[in-house]
């Protein structure tokens, strides 16, 4: 009798704990338990300065995925960004990926601008057209000191 009540209490505790863990990992950590909610695409950028793994990928202001991973392509010395895109979002091969900033000094994210081609991108494909991060410092210095090179 006493034993079962202890076991029930422990069960309730473990349940509450599991709910909390699930909230943290699934809702906040965006852990995809089944792994097939997303497909992945790569994109090459000259610079992704400020972009972090986990940043939002959006299209027309709607979140459609996340940045899974950022690496350096050692041969071409450019950044390779691995994007997780929700299944069901159909992208074509002329989509443009650009690194944007929310607000003046806010987080960096990736904006996808749709194209008009009819070739659809699948897992592992590469987005060819990209625009790199806008470097505010560089912009300001260009504006202030003029463009020396051109």
């Amino acid at each position, binding site marked *: 009798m006493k034993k079962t009540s202890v*076991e029930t209490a422990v069960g*309730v505790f473990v349940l*509450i704990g599991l709910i909390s*863990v699930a*909230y*943290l990992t699934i809702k906040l950590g965006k852990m995809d338990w089944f792994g097939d909610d997303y497909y992945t695409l790569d994109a090459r950028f000259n610079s992704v300065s400020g972009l972090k*793994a986990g940043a939002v990928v959006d299209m027309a202001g709607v979140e459609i995925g996340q940045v899974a991973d950022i690496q350096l392509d050692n041969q071409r010395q450019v950044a390779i960004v691995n994007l997780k895109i929700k299944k069901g979002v159909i992208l074509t091969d002329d989509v443009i990926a650009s690194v944007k900033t929310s607000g003046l000094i806010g987080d960096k994210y990736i904006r996808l601008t749709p194209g008009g081609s009819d070739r659809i991108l699948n897992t592992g494909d590469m987005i060819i057209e990209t625009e790199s991060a806008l470097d505010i410092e560089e912009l300001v210095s260009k504006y202030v000191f003029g463009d020396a090179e051109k």
Partner: protein
Amino acid sequence: MTQSYTITNMLAGLGRMAISPVQEFGRVAIFFFRGVIYLFSFPLQADKIIDQVYFIGTKSVFVICLTGAFTGMVLGLQGYYTLVKFGSEGLLGAAVALSLIREMGPVLAAIMIVARAGSAMAAEIGIMRISEQIDALETMDINPVRFLFSPRLGAALISFPFLTAIFDVVGIIGGYVTGSLLLGINSGLYFSRVESSVLMEDINGGFAKSFCFAAIVVTICCYQGYTTHLRKEGFGAKGVSLSTTSAVVLSCVMILVADYVLTSFLL
């Protein structure tokens, strides 16, 4: 002659002072590893582990919710007044969630568990030691480390991450209470910031910390109780009280030290 004697004596004293903490650390480490081995040796002590989860986990839920709520609320308050200076109070959700998940949750939950369960463990095992109950176990061919320490270790490894998760979630809600309900940040913004800022790495880091703290806290508390009879400064009830005090103090210090070390590895 006497002078050189004094000097060698002092040097020997210094040497002892340097060696004894190292020796003590080694003994604690051996104690811990014995506990781990016996935890997984058959027959498994599931019913004892459940009893201890009840004691360490279930009975700590209330105090964890209470401290979690107020920690989240004060973070909301402090964060708001800091962020509002930069006009970015919209980031409050991120600030609250990240500080809770990365730091405050694991550390404060562990310290609360030390206060609630760790001290009790040290006292209980200490009393068993001075009243010869541990000797009695040995005469019955029951390994006292296996019987007393391993179930507590197992239960702590189960309970700490859950309690930390509960602390985090309640804390995030507490931040929402001050940030949105009292100070008027849009509640959708608060939660979307919470969701977008927290990464899986942060959560994994928080759990890694809570596992480490669990091992540290139980090992220190049980070891202090287990070695009560070896104390030079006090015997009997006095020895138990000293063990309990040093278990709590040492655990808290080691939590913060380990937190620094782990954070520097995880970042």
